[in-house]
């Protein structure tokens, strides 16, 4: 730790805590999860940067969407995302969550994940190498420093839009809205 960091720690301990303790929820959303075991084990060792996988969404603050998202998985992804405690960051990993990737004409996969949950950053590639995850983590640090990793705030302020997109896809949703919908619609009107 260099001296600049000590001043940063004293100024904003919470922000530095979010930066250096990214606990990723270990949720196997697609084929990209195959790149995660090398990242967290001896070969690439993500624990150096404070990134470790945790078993439950309650303990996590980083959500890696690894690979294509089928309609069925999206339901689980949304519920997992809503269970994570509030300063939370999402990273889309691979081409598939960005624009569908090689599943661009599939009837059963999501083409743009950003329509359903807010994404703070993307890692392009099919497959991205494990090093790309470290690049993403360092970019995420910069974003957190500049208060630009505000996906959870966007989700809150635009919840009625996200909810409308989700309902358009699934029909009636089985779970109640995370934030009150009426207020937001009234604010717009």
């Amino acid at each position, binding site marked *: *730790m260099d001296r600049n960091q000590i001043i940063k720690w004293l100024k904003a*301990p*919470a922000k*530095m*805590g*979010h930066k*250096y*303790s990214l*606990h990723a929820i270990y949720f196997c959303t697609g084929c990209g999860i195959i790149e995660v075991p090398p990242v967290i*084990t*001896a070969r690439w*060792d993500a*624990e*150096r940067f*404070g990134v470790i996988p*945790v*078993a*439950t969404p*309650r*303990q996590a*603050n980083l959500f890696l969407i690894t690979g294509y998202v089928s309609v069925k998985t999206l339901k689980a992804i949304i519920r997992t995302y809503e269970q*994570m*405690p*509030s*300063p939370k960051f999402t990273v889309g990993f691979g081409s598939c969550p960005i624009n569908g990737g090689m599943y661009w004409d599939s009837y059963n996969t999501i083409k743009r994940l950003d329509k359903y949950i807010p994404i703070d950053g993307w890692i392009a590639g099919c497959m991205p190498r494990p090093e790309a995850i470290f690049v993403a983590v360092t970019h995420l640090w910069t974003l957190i420093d500049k208060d630009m990793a505000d996906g959870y705030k966007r989700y809150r302020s635009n919840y009625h839009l996200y909810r409308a997109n989700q309902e358009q896809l699934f029909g009636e949703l089985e779970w109640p809205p995370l934030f009150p919908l009426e207020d937001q619609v009234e604010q717009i009107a």
Partner: protein
Amino acid sequence: MRIVEVILAPILALLIGMFFLGLARKIMARIHWRYGPPITQPVIDVIRLFSQKSVSHGNMFTLGVLFSLACSLVLILFLPMGKICPLSSSGGMLVILYVMLLAPFGIALSGGEAANPNASIGISRKLTLALGYEVPLLVILLAVMTHYKTLSIVNIVSMQQNTSWALTSLPLFLSGIAYILILPAILGIRPFEITQAAQEISSGPMVEYGGSFLALATIQHGLNLFIGIALFVNLFLGGAGNPPIFFLKMLVVFVLGLFINAALPRLRIEQAMRYLWRWPTLIAFIGMIIVLIIRR
């Protein structure tokens, strides 16, 4: 003077506990041939968790964590560390016997409120494991009390400093071995990591903990490490005349425990019970009988 000690002892225990958690992650990483996180990583995690928004699942969920943490803090006040012994008096061992079982109980009450199936499996495992190690622990403590004819840990420590460590003296040698055998179960490290098995039951009772609840649970885990090792050092390694030597002895015991943690896989709960009620209990009973024969 005593008031200063009452404030100082939990803070010291907290620092040592967090240091142990960080050291555990670093040493495990070096054994895996990784570089590992900075040694302050648990402190960073706790800061992050306190700054996150936390969801409570009911009153008992909140109170159970606090109850467990309070039990651990009370235990620390009754454990002499070197010359710091805030509340140790003639019957300190009895307090430790009673309160030691309450700390897992608090986590059990709290995790049960969340009504998560993984949490209930974890709780049943945690309480079963506690039942497993309490039986040999009681026999061991009884042997120590019988040998030194006192209930006060301070007296036991001073008697050991006048003669020799209990672990190296003949009558209590077997009891010490039995305590070493159950120490991983008390600390909840790898062969007995069944309660928090992240891979099978999603970290067990902790499954619904997030934000500040998880931070408190992490602190409680650190204190739990401190208590298990401090009791061993006090009873069998002769305590210490001053705090630094005491913490050095604790460090040696903990690092040896970490090597066991790195080398062994996780047991199933019934294997753990079979082990705990067979070998450590048998050795503790033989040690107890030896103590009784020598006293005659």
